[in-house]
């Protein structure tokens, strides 16, 4: 595969992780982003590396692979160069563990069952007695009905983590081009051979769509639309406090909110401290397109849920709030693999709120698939041609474009069958122009 030119579209944490794996494998990698590296979704999240919120299944297995890889990857990067060491230090890796707290009887029941199932899938999930909970989190509410400790949960400063992966990718020979927006794809003989960007034509053999919540728009521009949509979240940041919250503490109803598909607001409390002493408080989920307007009632709902877990935080000033967009797929599974409709196009997206944690596993899996190596985790559940990804209504962008992209192909095709001849380069180049 030496000499294979890979173009990764999107320099967030997923793009950085994919670029790193492929560059280390000896491929010639170019990373493109229309903004700055890690400037969008990656730097607007909390930095969750969680196994606790995932039930048994393919996403949990990807999370477990990622959780194994994280310390390994960071150690490798730190050993490689002083720049790597500095970047890893800035990533603030913290395997602090998570504690899930239920505050209702129904919540306690659900949490206990969920944890039991997870234990069957090699997740460490330790039920905490009230005393043990008090020892672990002295400020948590007395009004809890159950609590489970997940020692494998970890936290990272997401922009720093992406910068560390990117630093290593660049050290391995990848190049980064920022401020360059992909306008259209160029296909020859049914294969994607280039992308036309605001900076010119970029040719390649393998194109990886890692544009997060914008990957649906990007896929449409490349002629292969699919159903990845933004799902907004908001985070509150308090002024620095003396140590008050020691783990990633969240409400048992968080798992339900993550798994829901409601358009309207879902909130649940996720509370944790950062290295600087600020407390980060999430989380909300709303499907409102790319509407970035502040909604005070959303922040208010998040605050109220957090106070249910930590009543003593009522007097703490919130000094900042930020919001971001998660890449959402209706079946809540990432999309990782080749696009059966257009040879040369691959996707690594759709991680919703779990992309920081899942990034290194995703990068590894994508490399396995691109290089046709034995995969370290099952990729079938993440394939592009599954109903949730291809069988929804087309994206507004795709519909409104005068040169509407062709309808999705039948879903039965296997990712390996990359056949597509209808698309002409000229037609594609007009798209998005």
């Amino acid at each position: 595969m030496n000499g294979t030119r890979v173009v990764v579209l999107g320099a967030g944490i997923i793009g950085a992780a994919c670029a790193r794996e492929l560059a280390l494998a000896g491929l010639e990698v170019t990373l493109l982003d229309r903004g700055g590296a890690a400037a969008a979704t990656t730097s607007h999240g909390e930095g969750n590396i969680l196994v606790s919120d995932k039930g048994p299944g393919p996403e949990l297995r990807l999370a477990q692979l990622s959780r194994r890889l994280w310390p390994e990857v960071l150690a490798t990067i730190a050993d490689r160069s002083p720049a790597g060491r500095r970047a890893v230090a800035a990533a603030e890796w913290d395997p602090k563990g998570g504690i899930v707290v239920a505050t209702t009887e129904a919540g306690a029941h659900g949490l206990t069952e969920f944890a039991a199932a997870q234990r069957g899938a090699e997740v460490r999930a330790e039920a905490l007695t009230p005393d043990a909970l008090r020892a672990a989190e002295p400020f948590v509410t007395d009004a809890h009905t159950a609590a489970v400790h997940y020692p494998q949960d970890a936290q990272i400063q997401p922009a720093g983590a992406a910068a560390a992966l990117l630093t290593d990718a660049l050290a391995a020979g990848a190049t980064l081009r920022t401020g360059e927006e992909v306008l259209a794809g160029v296909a020859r003989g049914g294969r994607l051979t280039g992308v036309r960007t605001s900076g010119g034509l970029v040719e390649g053999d393998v194109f990886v769509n890692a544009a997060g919540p914008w990957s649906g728009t990007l896929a449409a521009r490349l002629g292969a639309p699919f159903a990845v949509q933004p799902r907004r979240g908001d985070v509150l940041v308090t002024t620095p406090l003396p140590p008050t919250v020691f783990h990633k503490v969240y409400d048992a109803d968080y798992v339900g909110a993550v798994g829901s598909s409601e358009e309207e607001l879902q909130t649940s409390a996720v509370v944790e401290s950062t290295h600087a002493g600020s407390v980060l408080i999430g989380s909300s989920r709303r499907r409102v397109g790319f509407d970035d307007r502040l909604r005070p009632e959303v922040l208010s709902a998040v605050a109220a849920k957090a106070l249910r877990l930590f009543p003593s935080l009522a007097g703490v000033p919130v000094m900042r709030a930020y919001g971001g967009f998660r890449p959402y797929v209706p079946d809540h599974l990432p999309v990782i693999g080749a696009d059966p409709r257009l040879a040369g196009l691959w996707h690594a997206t759709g991680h919703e709120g779990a992309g920081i944690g899942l990034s290194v596993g995703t990068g590894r899996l994508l490399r396995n698939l691109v290089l046709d190596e034995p995969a370290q985790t099952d990729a079938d559940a993440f394939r592009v041609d599954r109903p949730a990804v291809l069988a929804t209504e087309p994206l507004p962008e795709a519909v409104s474009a005068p040169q509407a992209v062709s309808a999705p192909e039948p879903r039965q095709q296997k990712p390996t069958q990359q056949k597509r001849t209808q698309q002409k380069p000229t037609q594609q180049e007009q798209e998005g122009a």
Partner: protein
Amino acid sequence: MTPRHVAVVGAGPAGLAAAQAALAAGARVTLIDSAEQPGGQYHRMLPDAYAAERPGELHHGWTAFERRRRQVLTHPRCSWLAETSVWALERTGRDRPPRVHLLCDGPVDGSGRTRRTLDVDALVLATGAHDRVLPFPGWQLPGVFTAGAAQALAKGERVVVGDRVVVAGSGPFLLPVAASLLEAGSRVREVLEANTPGTVARGWGRRPWELAAQLGKTAELAEYAAALTRNRVPYRLGRTVVEARGAGRVEEIVTARLRPDWSVIQGTERTVPVDALCVSHGFSPQLELPVAAGCALRDGEFVAVDDEQRTSVPGVFAAGEITGIAGAPAARAEGAVAGWAAAGGSVTDAGPVADAGPVTAAGPVTAAGPVTAAGPDADAGPVADAGPATAGRRTAAGGTRSARALRVLRRSRDQGRAFARRLAQAHPIGTGWPGWLRSDTLVCRCEETDYGALCSAFGSEAESAPRVAKLGTRAGLGPCQARICGPTVAELRARLGGGLQDRPADRPAEGLPTASPHTRPIAQPIRLGELAASPTPPIPTDPPEESSP
């Protein structure tokens, strides 16, 4: 006809003038300020508790200010919300101003304040500016003040920051600060203007006729200059403070002569013993609310406004220092135009604004004719005929008079803008200031981020995106939320190459906020408990009794 409801945020010179003009135009006004008293930074008042015998001491235009303050605060159509913060602006639709989210009934750092919301027909933002201070080694030492803080202490608390003080930086503001310190009893050793005599002379000397319009301002400055002369305080140009030293607090400073670009001329350093240092390198407009409202900016630095002070957002007006640093007289003129337009008065048609007569530094809208509606002795009577909806009934004479008043107001505003341009030319920030920095010089005082850390982040391809560098270095994440270091960090980034790859890179991805040092969706800190509570009760949109004639 229900009068239009105008909310004015900020009760400094611009906001107070806006409130007065909006009342004169027949609107209902809610005037909001985080301080206990109106006046802003310019007319910072002693708290009532001081019961000062001569509250106007150290103040300019006090009588006119007092009159305007009384007129506005006692007006039956005005609600004055003191000690109230606007913590968020919520954009609810395309064609109306954002909903105003307030924290009422308590000082900014108080607790248990009440959350309320306010929906209005028009919003006038007059949030003013705060000092811009460039970093230099030792600027974080106790005893180093922003000039604005030192003046606020002198004016607002009658506290003297030190006995042997140096005032340094750039701009005419150094003079009133020095004068305030002298009046409050400090010994001012020298006043240092960083710009060279050539730069200052060229800036002010160009188009001297424009200055004539600012006679009030010029006279005021002359008075300050006279105070310096009387007290034998030297005013030096082309020299500044490049370092502050001391064990635990400032004990001495190093000053040096500068080239026109503010690079240090080696060998001209002088050590001066001091017990306090006041610095100001100009002003940063407080843009978080305009940015939250979605207002377009001019050069990324000021709110863009049209001839009637309208911003790019329907129903949102801006006045004062957030549209350009031009001082109190210009702010008053802008405020009056904004208040009038916000109330629905047309700036081109005749309308019920006062016969202002000659516009003085004291303020463009003075009492006469229909504006008595704004006077303290007016009851609800004049409200009906002062409303903009009834402008058609106005006499021809009154209309002509109002039109003339508006012309005068706008002329005064335009003169203020010309003054602002000259000010910027005469007192620019030189490009050579990063030469004062050392690797361990703090740039962000809240988070103790030093220059070396920023150099390293901005020099790295992987970390140079503004938000990534911010999270990585923590510069701007502390309690002041980049109000002090934000412009400095942005400039260093451009200088250090982080900006090189930027051409369109700083353009935000769809749906994500621009990486602007002014983006603060939570404009003022709000306690978690206050945030969790629902807003109660909403401030009624219609006034209880004046709803319709």
